[in-house]
């Protein structure tokens, strides 16, 4: 059996993934543990992400097992742009931050690197395990939690509110838009803000139209991604 540098990490990751899925390690899809370390150049220094090497193969294996498409396992442009915006304008040390739908967790890592107190969440347990390992790889601390909006929304809101709520490309289903409309206003503290990155999905337009009643909205664009800042009206 070949041994590469990531063998030990793969073992640690496999244990967490299997435990969170409630299955044995050898039942995990092979593509989930075929991982590599990716370097992301950002203002303030490089960030390193552990991620599956072959997303198409992982999607194929998950599909064959009748599991959802593993959107969490890619670094999408919105996550990258939100992280870059945070790296340019980082939260103050001690800022309470929650990221929802964090996926691989890049924006969370940037916030934690700035000294914020971060809770990284995703609805997929696999994402939670990968984000935890990437936080470790970057030597920053944050809490990670499995949060499905429909199941754990109340529990998440009860843990808040937060000074800064981060979300990158989470409004890709109507169900998510409805859940976000209900949940996001309850997560942000008075005087806090939501930073939402989105590639112009219809769901985002719907959410922003509804949010204008209770939030001050400012938006800017970086390439194909719009960055929205929502501040609760006082």
């Amino acid at each position: 059996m070949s041994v590469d540098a990531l063998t030990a990490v793969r073992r640690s990751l496999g244990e967490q993934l299997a435990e969170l899925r409630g299955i044995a390690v050898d039942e995990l899809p092979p593509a989930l543990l075929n991982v590599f370390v990716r370097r992301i150049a950002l203002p303030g220094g490089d960030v390193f992400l552990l991620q599956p090497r072959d997303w198409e193969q992982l999607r194929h294996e998950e599909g064959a097992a009748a599991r959802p498409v593993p959107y969490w396992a890619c670094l999408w442009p919105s996550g990258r742009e939100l992280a870059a915006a945070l790296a340019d304008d980082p939260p103050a040390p001690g800022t309470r931050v929650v990221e929802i739908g964090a996926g691989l967790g890049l924006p969370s890592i940037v916030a934690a690197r700035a000294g914020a107190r971060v809770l990284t969440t995703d609805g997929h347990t696999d994402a939670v395990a990968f984000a935890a390992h990437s936080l470790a790889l970057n030597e920053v601390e944050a809490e990670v939690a499995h949060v499905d909006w429909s199941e754990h929304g109340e529990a998440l809101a009860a843990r808040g509110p937060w000074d800064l709520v981060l979300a990158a490309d989470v409004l890709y289903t109507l169900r998510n838009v409805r859940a976000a409309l209900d949940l996001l206003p309850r997560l942000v503290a008075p005087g806090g803000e939501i930073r939402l990155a989105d590639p112009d999905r219809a769901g985002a337009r719907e959410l922003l139209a509804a949010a204008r009643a209770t939030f001050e909205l400012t938006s800017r664009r970086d390439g194909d991604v719009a960055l929205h800042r929502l501040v609760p009206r006082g």
Partner: protein
Amino acid sequence: MAADAREGEIVRRLVHDLRTPLAVVAGFAELLDQRAGELTDEQRAEYVARILDGARQMDEILGRARAGA
């Protein structure tokens, strides 16, 4: 039985404590192994320093575990 339970607790804590420096050592070793041609001298030096620091942290954790055993 109590000794077994205590040992189990220590092992769990060790796994938890080692996970951070282990990820650092393995992750940056992977980058040096797979991406050496893309890295600048400065990046290579930084990654080696991170690996050495991670190894030192693991040595400290193991030392504390031995002292407490």
